[in-house]
Structure formats: C-alpha cells, structure tokens
C-alpha cells in the first residue's frame, strides 16, 4: 500500500486560468443572485423587531413605557403606534422583544442592555431619559419553565460584540457563543431571502403552496394535529411552571424597575383559543397566574391576565399557533387601550 499519487476525490481537470476561474465565479454569483430574487418573490423575508432595534430607539429616544417580553413583546410595537396616535406622541412605548426568551433572558437584557442606557446621566448628574414612568413585563406559563439547556437565542439576539468577546475570552469558542456569530452572519446577509430563510422553511412552504395547495381537508387535518400538540404542551406545562431561577428573575426585574420609580405591570399574554383545553384552563393557566400574583402582588404590581380573555379568535393567530398576526395585533391594540391598558393613556403615576 502506498499513498495514491493522484488526488482521486478531486476530478482531474486541465489546468485552468484566472480568466476561466473569474468567469466561473461570476456565473456562480449570478446564479445565486437570480435564485435569491426568485426566493424573494416567493417568500419575502419579514423584518422582525429585535432587541437591537429597541436599543437603537432607546439610545435616541425617551420612552414613557418599557415593555419587555419574548417575541410576544412585538405586540407592543403595534400598541405603541396606537398610543402615540391617541396621545399625540405624549406616550411612547419601547417594545423589547427577546426572541425565544424566558424570564431569565428578559432579566439579562434588562441588566446588561437596558439599564446601562436607562441609567445614563448628563453632565449635571441628572438622568438623560426622564420620561420613563411605567414598565410592562409580558409573560406566559412557558417563561417560568426551565429550558434544560442554555437559551441559544440569548447570545444570538441580545449580545453585543463586547459580550461575545468577553464570553470567548472566558470559555473559548463554544456552541453557545457561536449562536451570536451565526445570527450576526445572518443579519449581515439581510438582503438575501435565501439566507434569511435558513432554518425557517418559509420558502419551501411557499413553493409547495404554489405547486400543490393544501386541500381544505388537509388544512383541517393539520389544524387538528397542531392544536392537539399545543393542547398537550400547555397541559404538560403544569408540571414545570414556577422554576426557581425563572421566578427569581421575575422578582429581580420587578424590584429593579420599582427601585427606579417605575409602575410595574405584568401581562399574561393571550393564547390562541383552540390551543387551550379545558384541562389546561383548570390547571396550568390558573396555577401560573396564581404563582405570578403571589410573587408580584405583595409588591403592589398589578397582573393583567389576557390568556383567555382577549377578544381574539383563532384566525388572529399565525401559522405557528403562537404569534398574533398584524391585523390581530391591531385589533388587540385598540381593544387593550380602551380596556385593560387604558391606564397607559391616563395621568402618570
């Protein structure tokens, strides 16, 4: 046996030239760009509000209300539009959505991203942002369950380069901190529908929808499978809610916000009606609401429970059965500002 002299895995080809190589690259790039345009036409990537967008707004603005939560926090970007219109810009909500977050993740964002900016002072030692009076913590039962492994979206969506470098210096390059790079890489290619679709499968769904749209029966069958899965998940939630680190994070957030003179409200976010079984309505959901009330009630924090009481139908929720669609959010915003969140338009505390 000896080393083969010909690299068999590399198909032997005649010598190439720089010109030939340039033509190959040019056509490869052209193919990529063309395919990307088609992908854009089939499934245009949606820009979703992230922690970074909120930070940019905070650095240049002076909000009156801080609303922090998971991806559900994006609802408050819609409520912000409504409240600005109704109050002629007097009230301004800063919505901070921490994608796939939990209470510990919101606490991290509050501690490491928001507070350093909120606590900035001017040359006279007075706070730069003086309008902030209220804070809303948006949560649901899932936020209080342990995740079981580090939340990969925390580095991805919430870290800055400084956090990344500090973590690499401490732990080396790890799968956890690599989430930061992966997300930055994806954001760098924000103009590419193909890159933005990685891991989303929106493009494939769109292609399938065009080639062979799902029949009404198939849609109904899918609806049933999805609702059954969600119902079970919410029911099972009864066994994991109230994990100590998550509840401690809630406690810390309330204390921290109140220490800065803010009126704090906890919102239990609305759920899609079909995903809630009677059993979940009798166990997970009331038990979680009770846990939250017991934790924050004694601190004078009001809890608004919209889990089942918001005037939303199944049609107001997206294909993931979790997030409210644009029209649903607009309807929810109007209803909330006339009802449970009316106080945001009233005299400040």
């Amino acid at each position, binding site marked *: 046996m000896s080393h*083969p002299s010909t690299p068999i895995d590399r198909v032997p080809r005649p010598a190439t030239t720089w010109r030939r190589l340039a033509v190959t690259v040019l056509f490869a790039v052209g193919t990529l760009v063309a395919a990307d345009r088609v992908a854009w036409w089939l499934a245009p990537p949606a820009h979703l509000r992230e922690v970074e967008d909120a930070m940019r707004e905070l650095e240049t603005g002076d909000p009156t209300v801080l609303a922090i939560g998971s991806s559900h926090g994006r609802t408050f970007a819609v409520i912000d539009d409504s409240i600005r219109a109704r109050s002629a810009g007097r009230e301004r909500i800063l919505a901070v959505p921490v994608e796939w977050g939990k209470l510990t993740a919101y606490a991290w964002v509050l501690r490491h991203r928001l507070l350093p900016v909120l606590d900035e002072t001017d040359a006279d030692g007075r706070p730069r942002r003086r309008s902030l009076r209220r804070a809303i913590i948006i949560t649901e039962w899932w936020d209080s369950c342990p995740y079981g492994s580090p939340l990969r979206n925390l580095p991805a969506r919430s870290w800055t380069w400084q956090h990344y470098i500090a973590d690499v210096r401490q732990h080396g390059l790890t799968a956890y901190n690599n989430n930061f790079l992966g997300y930055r890489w994806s954001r760098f290619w924000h103009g590419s529908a193909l890159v933005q679709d990685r891991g989303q499968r929106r493009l494939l769904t769109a292609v399938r929808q065009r080639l062979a749209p799902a029949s009404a029966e198939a849609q109904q069958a899918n609806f049933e499978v999805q609702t059954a899965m969600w119902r079970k998940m919410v029911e099972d939630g009864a066994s994991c809610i109230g994990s100590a680190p998550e509840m401690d994070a809630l406690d810390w957030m309330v204390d921290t916000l109140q220490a800065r003179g803010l009126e704090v409200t906890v919102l239990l976010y609305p759920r899609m009606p079909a995903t809630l079984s009677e059993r979940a309505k009798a166990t997970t959901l009331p038990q979680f609401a009770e846990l939250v009330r017991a934790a924050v009630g004694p601190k004078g924090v009001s809890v608004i429970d919209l889990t089942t009481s918001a005037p939303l139908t199944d049609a107001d929720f997206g294909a993931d059965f979790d997030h409210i669609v644009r029209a649903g959010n607009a309807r929810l915003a109007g209803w909330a500002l006339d009802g449970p969140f009316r106080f945001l338009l009233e005299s400040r505390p």
Partner: protein
Amino acid sequence: MSLTGVAFALFLPLVLGAYWLLPRRAVLQNAVLLLASLGFYLSWSPEWLLLLIFGTVLDFGLAQVVADERRPTGVRRLALGVAVAANLGALLWFKYVGFLTDAMHALFAAAGLPSSATAMAVVLPLGLSYYTLIRIGYLLDVHHRRIAPSRSLLEFATFVMFFPQIIAGPITRAGRMLPQLRDARRLDPTRVAQGANAFLLGWWMKGYLADWIAPALVEPVFADPGAAGAAAHWLALGGYAVQVFGDFAGYSLLAIGVAALLGLELPVNFDRPFLSRSMPEFWRRWHISLNTWLFDYLYGPWVTGTGWLRGRIALTLVLVFALSGLWHGARWTFVVWGLLHGLALAVHHGWDTWYRARCRVDRRWVTARKHAAYALAAWLLTQAWFLGSLILFRAEDLGSVGRFLRGLLGQGTGFPAEMDAITLVNCAVAFGFIVVHHLLALPAAERVRSLGARTPAALRGIFYGGVIVWLLVFAPLGRGTFIYAQF
C-alpha cells in the same frame, strides 16, 4: 471552530488574506499558517494547546538526535524510544486510561476478587489520535533514513499543527508535507479551482448529506435499538453508512480544499469505497491515510521483520485491525469491530492464496474470477460485511448491538418518526448522490467524466451556484460536529 461553521467562514478569508498578501517567502507563509493553526486549536481545545506544543518541540529536538550519525547508535535508539514512548504514553493516558481501569475492574469482579480500581474520566485532547500518528510516522521515517529531519522548528510545527488536518486528518506524512513547506507557495488558479471544488464537495457531503441523513434515518433508530420495525433498521444502517462516509470523506475534502487554497496538497483519504469487491480493496479506499500508516509502520515491519510475527500474515492482519479498532475509540464495540475486519482480511488472504493455487493448475478458475457473477458476489459480500460491522461502530455497547440485530430481523414495529415529503426527497438525494458519485468513477463513465472536465466555465459557474442555492435551502442548521473528530 468547525470547518463548516460561521466562525470558520470569517477565519478562513483572514488567513488566506494574510497568507497571500504578505511577501512570498516560505518563512512568512509558514509563520502565518502556524499562527492560524494555534488560533484554530485554541478555539477548540485551549486547555490542551501546551500539550500539543510541548510534544511537537520534544519530537523536533529528539528527531535531531535520532538523525545525528555522529552519536552512538544506543543514544539514537534511546532518543527514538523516548520520543515514541512519550507520544504513545500521552495517547494511552488520555484515551485509554478510563477504558483500562474499567476493564481491570470488570476482570477482578469476574474473578470474584475485590478491586479498588475506579473508572477514571480523562478528557481526550482534540486531535491527539491524529497528531500522535503524524509525529510517530515522522520519527520512524527519520530513524529509517527515509527522510532527513526538519531543521526548522517553524516548518516542523506548521506540518504537525496544520489546522485543516489537526482535528480529523488526513494523517499526513512528513515526506510529503515538509518539502511543500520548505519552498514558498505560489498562487495558482488550477490549485485554487481544485481547492474550491473540493471544499464545496466536502461541504455538500458533510453539511448536507450526513447532516440530513443522521436525524432523519439514523439517530431515531439507534436511540432505541430494536423498537422500530425491520425496514426502519435497514434504512438506519444504510443511512449510517451514508452518514459516516459523508461526514468523514466530507471532512477530508474540506481539509484538502482548504490546504489547496493555501497552495498545499494533502493526501486523498477516500476513493469510492463502496465500489470495493474485497476487504483489502475496501481498506485501500476508506480512510486511506490511516490504513497506509498502519500498513507502513505496523503491518509491514511486523510481517517482514525479524520478530515472531514474521510471515504470519493472517495473525498480523487481525492484530493490526484490532489496534485500528482501538484507535477509533476506547470501547469494546470498536475492538470487536476491528477484530471482525482483521478476521475478514485474514479469511480473504487465505481464500486468495487457495484460489491462486487453483488458478495455477486450471485456467478456468481465472475465467471464473473475471465473471460478472463472481464480481457481484464479491461486491455484495464486501459491502454486507462492512455494513454489518457498522452496527458495532455506531452502537454504544455490545447489548445495543444485539438489540439492533434483532431489530433488523423484524422484532419491532413501524418507523420511529413520520417523515415529511421534504425529508424523503433529501434522503433520496443523499442516497442517489452516493450512487452517482461512485458510478462516475467506473471506466464506463469515462465519457461523462471527460464531458464534465470540458464543461465551459460559465456552465460550471451556474452548476456551482445551483449547488450553493440547494445547500442554502436544504442544509440543516447547527450540526457542526464531525464523527471522526471524536476519535
């Protein structure tokens, strides 16, 4: 930092930029490569960087003694012994101490004797199995005067720590690499094209093929052997063959591609192994760099040397392959896996000797061997043996092997998970690619190959662009680990 990860996508252009933009001098190019390699290793295994550096410096120094003919033979042999023992000692300690203490404990327990041996959990430094063989190969080559020792520590360290190969090979030879590192490298369009081509093919095989097949067909069945039906088990086994080939051949191609972009040539590690019609042929096509290493430094010297193994071909084959199994991992499943392959090679050797003797007396035996039926039977037997041995390669313990075998015979029922149309299409593409990839190497595909080689640059660009689009759409996210990096 995985070769298919984002960090590497940022790292590689930086290295290439520094490497090619600096004045074209070997010492500068090697310095860039060494710095890059240290950074790369640091990103994986910072706690073991000193071990790597210490061993490299020690081997460099001792190799000078081994090669110095002014010194007495005893001193030179002692230097060689110390160097080899240090390398093997590190490998034994880090890779096998837990396994050996476990085995000792079990032995004592079986004999009814009290044992104070407790299992030791020692973390395996990344790449240790590979760079140990690279360094021992170098020391033996110097000792046997096959090569002159490297006179530059920079050059030698660059060879040992070269980042594309350090975590999972190919296991390079000093005789091949050091001369390349001695001269300044030139940016050559043909080599760049070959490098990019190998890198893309490697990405396709690892980032798409292996990473699709594993969660769809393999992992659910091996997670609970025997539970699913026979079809699921057979698919899982076939899928695992595709996965392990895609994973490792893909990694080798990524390494070969990166090296080519740096103007260096690494040895080929896989050569269409699923075309093999005998086990010796299989091992000449699968993990070539390891098997040539075993052949050149263990099998050859043992069989042709003056020791007890001289001329005992079958026994040496079994022994070498048992060691190969042990090299793959400190588990009994790997040892049995190696023994099975050693046994297969020994049986083949016996068969071949017997058959050749028949051929000498009757030419009809020669004709029979050239017959398609013989070729088909040989191919089926070879592939079935390899496929069957993969159960041992993948299983956690010998008990799981038994359960998996019962699963193959239809003890369980159904599939562990329902597969959607996209998964089915991608699994079919994965299997289809393996078939086409192998068929293209057959003499009958010569016309297709030459057509491919003569494809106009524009068409070639469109093809590559299409492959990248396919990868963007279908290659799964976040599975950057390589099976062979664990060995």
